[in-house]
């Protein structure tokens, strides 16, 4: 068990290193000059371009930039911002080109907003998705089953920004039954309830997928021999369905859950924007508009790290769910 986890963790670390290198190459060794892009076209004086190159370090050879970048991530480094050196503690992601704030800090203040939204969304899509999927699987072939599958397919194929906009319009503008987003500094209570509206619509959109995963997985396990054995023991149908069939049906769902959570935690671009949630997704879009390269790079890196970390968590969760994994 420990060996299994250690092996998975080691693998995650090596993937992480590859991700770091790839991100670096993508931003610094690509064919385009990031300094030129950030400088803009109209206001770009040679002096300004030079400043940007220096602060990014792109005036130096790639190999040197590379070691400097990793040194920053590992132990911190000094970065020139507008000609003056500033310390950037590890893991150093640089400074915002626009505001001069450290990228790490800028992300850290926004991450809790995204994370809370992600958790609330998960709570909704797991309960709604799995319970509805189980219900459909137990009644498979009936009108209810067909209705659930059909509805989830139609609802799930409407673009999320349309659903998000309509939902925001109806619940917070036309009929303001749900509170709008409030910053954490305005109090945790208002902050939390302000996330309910985006969590509901996002949760329902994701639930359409989970209904189908859970249904398919349950249809499969309900037909398994061990479920027949369970039923032949004389235990209640509730136990047969939940303790025996659902327990086994959850394993495949956990994989998808891990990837979805990595996606949600790295920020929902559209939904955060529509509901004004000051999260990573909204921040990334704003930075893109401002050509704020260090921040864009930081958000991309966070997304990649989250995917790796969530995969590791999925692997560990698997080993708790399935003893065959744990003991092999």
């Amino acid at each position, binding site marked *: 068990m420990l060996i299994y986890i250690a092996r998975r963790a080691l693998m995650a670390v090596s993937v992480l290193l590859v991700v770091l290198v790839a991100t670096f190459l993508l931003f610094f060794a690509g064919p385009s000059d990031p300094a030129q892009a950030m400088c803009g076209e109209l206001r770009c004086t040679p002096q300004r371009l030079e400043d940007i190159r220096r602060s990014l370090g792109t005036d130096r050879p790639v190999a040197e930039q590379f070691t400097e970048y990793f040194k920053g991530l590992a132990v911190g480094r000094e970065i020139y911002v507008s000609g003056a050196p500033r310390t950037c503690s590890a893991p150093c992601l640089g400074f915002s080109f626009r505001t001069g704030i450290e990228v790490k800090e800028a992300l850290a203040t926004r991450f809790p907003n995204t994370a809370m939204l992600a958790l609330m969304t998960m709570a909704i899509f797991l309960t709604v998705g799995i319970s509805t999927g189980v219900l459909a699987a137990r009644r498979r072939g009936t009108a209810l089953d067909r209705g659930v599958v059909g509805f989830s397919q139609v609802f799930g194929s409407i673009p999320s920004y349309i659903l998000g906009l309509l939902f925001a319009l109806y619940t917070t503008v036309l009929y303001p039954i749900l509170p709008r987003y409030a910053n954490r500094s305005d109090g945790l209570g208002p902050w939390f309830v302000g996330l309910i509206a985006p969590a509901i619509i996002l949760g329902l959109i994701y639930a359409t997928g989970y209904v189908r995963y859970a249904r398919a997985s349950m249809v499969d396990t309900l037909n398994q021999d061990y479920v*027949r054995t369970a039923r*032949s*023991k*004389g*235990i209640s149908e509730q136990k047969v369905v939940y303790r025996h069939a659902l327990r086994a049906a959850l394993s495949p769902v956990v994989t998808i859950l891990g990837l979805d959570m990595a996606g949600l935690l790295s920020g929902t671009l559209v939904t955060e924007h529509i509901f004004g949630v000051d999260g990573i997704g909204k921040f990334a879009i704003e930075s893109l508009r401002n050509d704020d390269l260090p921040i864009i790079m930081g958000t991309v890196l966070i997304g990649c790290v989250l995917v790796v970390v969530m995969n590791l968590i999925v692997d560990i969760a698997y080993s708790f*769910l399935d*003893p065959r994994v744990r003991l092999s």
Partner: protein
Amino acid sequence: MSAQPVPPQDSAAHDVAAASAPERNVVTEAPAGEVVLKITDLCVRFPSDEGPVNAVQDLTYEARLGRTLAIVGESGSGKSVSSMAVLGLHNPKRSTITGSILLDGNEIVGADESLLRRLRSNTAAMIFQDPLSALHPFYKVGSQIAEAYLAHNSVSKDIAAKRAVEMLELVGIPNPARRAKQYPHEFSGGMRQRAMIALGLVNNPKLLIADEPTTALDVTVQAQILDLVKDLQREFGSAVILITHDLGVVAEVSDDILVMYAGRAVERGLAKEVLARPQHPYTHALLQSLPSASEDSDQLQTIKGSPPSLVHLPSGCSFHPRCMVKDRVPGDPCATLLPELRVSSPGRQIRCHLTNPESVLDQEVVS
């Protein structure tokens, strides 16, 4: 007879069978022990896109305490479907069941869920073919057995867990306390099937249905498992239904036999007699195709053709398209008229138009 079955190796079992059949030639429905299961005119039908699947039709048989009934037939002949019906395991929304199944005096056909729950495992238990897929991969073997005990006995979890260990010991699993804490995939095939038997017997049921309990195992383990079932039956005096397509197995452990073809019973009688002198052409063909240890095993015949579709059964006798002696019946009724299951000789029933089946089939072997 080319297909003389292997004689039972266990002389005790031989004696039991002989004792229940006092005179070889004047056997009536040799009774021994109370009837725990009485199935009458059972039909099980499943809806399908092509039309209803007639998995079991007009099935009538009974199982008695202390006796082993073998149900044999090619795969798809309705053996599993009919025995799962005994525990009410077919989803009522996806099957139509008619006829009567009296289990220890309780009508199973149309029974409500609470009655079925009371009877399952407690009165009748079932062991399935592949113990790896029949045990839940995520739960420890001991707890899976304890769960069945807890369902019918108001005892603490500790006591149920102890009971599970006792059962594992009873079925001959070494180190039962440690084994109880392991998962099914940590068991070997034979040990898993022993664990399944322990699960089946944990509530001391009157009827144990073993659905091809040895098919997934290798030959030496098969014999051990059958011996175990036989020993336990002698110890607890329960009725056993042994479903198999291996006639060698039948010869060793069964008292009675029921041969099924395409959902119907085609021959019933005492196992030893049926195996020695089959009267239905299908039983005869099955015995011919048995890979026996005898020297003529290189002349092994398989039954020509394949079992019929259960949606579109042949007219008349379901077996007639494959029957090698149908032209021996005067008037050629086989293709048009379904034969009734009738008493052909004392203690024997066949579903066949042949009036002198034994002599016809004897000639068949010679040719």
